[in-house]
């Protein structure tokens, strides 16, 4: 079946601009996660959705970052007033909760470059 998809695959934006990154999880997965990965580092947790609600947003670095999942499926990560330090690969993952399958399935990521 289809895996997690993310669009765009690459995004170049100017400092100060607003960007939206989209994640389409595996059908039926109730849990959705956003991570950020800088070069040479492991993924860093940003936010976790269970259904439509953000169950844990403790990883969002500041109030310029916001994410939504209005219908419990597709999610959008929104970054306002982008800064050069926001440049990274933004990974989305989804999983089933309450099953014996613990793994998170990652999408290919969106590479964000802020110039």
């Amino acid at each position: 079946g289809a895996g997690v998809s993310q669009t765009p695959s690459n995004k170049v934006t100017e400092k100060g601009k607003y960007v939206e990154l989209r994640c389409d999880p595996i059908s039926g997965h109730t849990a959705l996660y956003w991570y950020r990965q800088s070069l040479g580092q492991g993924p860093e947790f940003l936010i976790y959705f269970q259904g439509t609600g953000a169950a844990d947003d403790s990883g969002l670095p500041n109030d310029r970052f916001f994410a939504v999942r209005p219908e419990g499926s597709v999610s959008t990560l929104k970054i306002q007033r982008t800064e050069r330090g926001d440049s990274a690969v933004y990974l989305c993952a989804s999983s089933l909760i309450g099953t014996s399958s613990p793994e998170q399935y990652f999408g290919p990521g969106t590479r964000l470059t802020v110039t």
Partner: protein
Amino acid sequence: GQQVMQIPQYQHVQEGEDFTTYCNSSTTLSNIQWYKQRPGGHPVFLIQLVKSGEVKKQKRLTFQFGEAKKNSSLHITATQTTDVGTYFCAAQGAQKLVFGQGTRLTINP
């Protein structure tokens, strides 16, 4: 917050040699997961360890969880070029994962 330290950061081996990466936490972990990320790719789940002292094998890969549930290791026997990539351990805190820095494995064929 929870931190997971992983060593070494890089490892270069000759094809056929063994490889080990280590993961350490200052706190007791409920479980630990291992992921592999190929160059240019995304993390792919390998395994989850839950029990103290647990050892699991997947073909040439052996995963261990320490008795105190504060450390874990991944050992690859007789590496092949297909093993190239970065291996991450990840501690599960509630639902989110806290990843180590990863060990990047390169192999000389």
